């Protein structure tokens, strides 16, 4: 809808619409919102992990996922895994997914080591949070970022 006097000149109205559309498009770019982070922290709290300390967790994830629908993840929590000192549960949360819960791994002293791996779905670039519950009631946590891209020719 260009101005009547000069077909090449963009009308003021048209310019405002263009800028508005660009801003809306920018806002629609996938990003982890404050709401997503809050949902994850609420899930961590519900699992009892409020005030979890850091350290003692190795969270293995690719820096850039080959494909967001199948991302290999490995986790290991340091622990003697004896009857009175072992890792009970390791939760995985995906901050940028529609729901933060990914899985909850339940170990026992018979596991020998608190180490497991699986493959997960990630909707977009985001942080993965591992939360470990120890047999003495204490918690530890670790965070790693994974980049998820939109493919190349047709996704």
């Amino acid at each position: 809808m260009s101005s009547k006097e000069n077909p090449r000149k963009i009308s003021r109205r048209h310019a405002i619409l263009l800028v508005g559309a660009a801003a809306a498009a920018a806002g629609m770019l996938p990003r982890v919102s404050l709401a997503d982070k809050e949902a994850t922290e609420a899930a961590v709290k519900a699992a009892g992990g409020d005030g979890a300390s850091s350290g003692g967790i190795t969270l293995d994830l690719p820096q850039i996922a080959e494909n967001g629908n199948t991302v290999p993840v490995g986790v290991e929590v340091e622990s003697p895994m004896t009857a009175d000192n072992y890792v009970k549960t390791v939760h995985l949360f995906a901050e940028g997914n529609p729901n933060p819960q990914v899985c909850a791994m339940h170990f026992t002293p018979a596991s020998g080591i608190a180490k497991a791996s699986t493959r997960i779905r990630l909707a977009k670039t985001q942080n993965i949070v591992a939360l470990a519950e120890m047999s003495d009631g204490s918690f530890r946590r670790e965070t790693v970022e994974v980049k998820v891209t939109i493919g190349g020719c047709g996704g």
Partner: protein
Amino acid sequence: MQKNTFTGLMAGAAVAAVFSIAAVASGEPKSGYQFAEPETRAMQDDDFSNPAMLVADYGGDLWSTPDGEANKSCEDCHGDAAVSMKGVKTRYPTYYQPWGKMINLELRINECRKNNQKAKAWKYESKEMIGMASYVGYQSRGMSMAVDIGGKATPFFKKGKEFFYERRGQMDMACSHCHEDNAGNMIRANLLSEAQVNGFPTYRLKWSGVGTLHRRFKGCNDNIRAEPFKRGSDEYVNLELYLAWRGRGLTVETPSVRN
């Protein structure tokens, strides 16, 4: 522990540089395996972590299951697949006298079903066909691809080669533009491979499942906004022949894992 960012970027750049230098034109084909991320390769490396093996297992079950009016299983005629099917994948597509043209593995399986089992043809992309093609292909794992393009196969090989270099679709692109001229380069966030066929049927992460080569051809044609051909069409079988020849010497990886 997460891989170091800098190391990862440098390694990625080095890998891309090597691949873009040593293209197919130099005569050294590179399997899609070498273009995949380490995590994707790890998925393929162990038959107990490779999801495509579940599909090959299903094919193995079908191998011993009687079917058709003749109520015969593949095993009744072919015995142990590890013996009778060894090497089969390395020489397909092959010239098929009754049709006077090339035939690939999937189409050959249906010929056997029709003629010997008196059974209904499996749909090309059905789980039965994919399972059987994966199971049969698996028996040639580790063997070098060695398709024959001489004699009666030559005119079809020429057609397949023409297809590979022919522009098509809205984007007016040929297979070679991406997979020969730009193998090892990025297209947005994907790394372009050489389009080798040594790992098909393959578990594509994108499909979250196993699919045939012709499914991949269709996807590629769709991507450049070209009218795709039907699975099992002469065009795709001839192209498959050309690509199999182009990848001669690569080891069969069926069923592989790719992005």
